[in-house]
């Protein structure tokens, strides 16, 4: 193996290490940004996608299976504040900002999932 080949190999190895390091840094920085997205689905169809990381206060009126739901966002969290469902379980959940902790209104077939970085796989 001559000197030139050895130098080229070293350049290649260093380039690959650089690419790997940059990719890793990118993945880690994306995880840290904590971009929380709320997806509102009615009967499994996404009807609204909300960027919670903007921390905006906003009202959404979602047409569910049996009536309209009033959804509100504030401080990076989301809640169903009004629903015509009989047990009001969805309203009682209050404001949620955790991923893997969906808000479900079974009566209206509405499912609100928050997606983003999390250190748990599921909430109980």
């Amino acid at each position, binding site marked *: 193996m001559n000197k030139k080949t050895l130098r080229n190999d070293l350049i290649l190895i260093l380039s690959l290490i650089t690419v790997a390091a940059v990719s890793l840094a990118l993945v880690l920085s994306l995880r840290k940004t904590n971009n929380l997205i709320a997806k509102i689905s009615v*009967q*499994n169809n996404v009807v609204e996608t909300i960027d919670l990381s903007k921390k905006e206060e906003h009202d959404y009126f979602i047409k569910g299976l049996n009536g309209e739901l009033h959804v509100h966002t504030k401080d990076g969290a989301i809640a169903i504040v009004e629903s015509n469902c009989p047990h009001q379980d969805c309203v009682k959940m209050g404001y949620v900002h955790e991923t893997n*902790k969906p808000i479900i209104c079974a009566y209206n077939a509405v499912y609100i999932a928050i997606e983003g970085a999390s*250190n*748990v*796989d599921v909430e109980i």
Partner: protein
Amino acid sequence: MKKKILSLFVISLVSCSQASKVIESKVFCFDTYISTSLYEGNKDNILELEKSFTYYSKISDNYNDNDLVNVYKINRSNEEITVSSELYDLLKTSFDVKNHGAKYFNPLCGSLANKWKESLKSKHILDENIKNEEILKINSSSLDFKENNIIQRNGEAEIDLGGIAKGYALDKAKDYLKSQNIKSYLVNGGSSSLLLGEKKNKDGLFSIGISDLDNKYIKAKNCFVSTSATSLQGVKIGDITYSHIINPFDGSAINLYDAVIVISNNGALGDALSTSMMFSSIDEIKQIEKDEDVKVLVIKDNEIKYKNESIEVFSR
């Protein structure tokens, strides 16, 4: 050498992309959404699970009639009824769990639970007379199991499988996944019933956040995690929280704890035990842990009231 290095790089990239492969589905049944994440297998496996969940949801439904012989139909008859072998076994299981420590779980509490729900909706405690009438109904009712999948309801008490059907369906899901040699999965039955395989990481453990304990989580794999809690469906009247979980002996809706989490190898039993243990003393819980090979975490006022020594609770 260059070729070797490049090949290794490409192989590592391909491996990384394969490790992140996950097939997900969400199906509405049991009055909630069942979310399934398979880290192995294919779309057909997901469809098979969805079909199974929907089927068990339909046969265990006590609120709505449908095209199958279900609990709704059984609750409206005192005649002999031929049911599917699946419903027969589910019903049998729901009555047998009391012999495995779930003494406060009674599938005949349907009507009493509904009366409580109606009353709490208007922020009222259930009238004593109505409560006593319902207890009388429960104590004078039964379900007979006859040959050839024939059952007969005696008395007026109504069957409610809400505290066990999801766990039972997850048992069937586990059997199916095992038959397909799928080991890495997470099935979330609306948070109250989880079925965990192995996560595709070093130790295979999933992290499970606990809502009733601020910023705490546990780790688990290859098990069922069943939770009963007052936090979501509890109604506070005065200083007392009344729950949807009813004591079948005295008709009370006051639970001893805010949440009971049961880690087990049997979804139906785990679900029934978590419900029943809301009325059990800590000593009773410890005995059931020994007898039934389950691990329990009990929460009251955002603090751990009792935990099995093998359960480790982590801070986020």
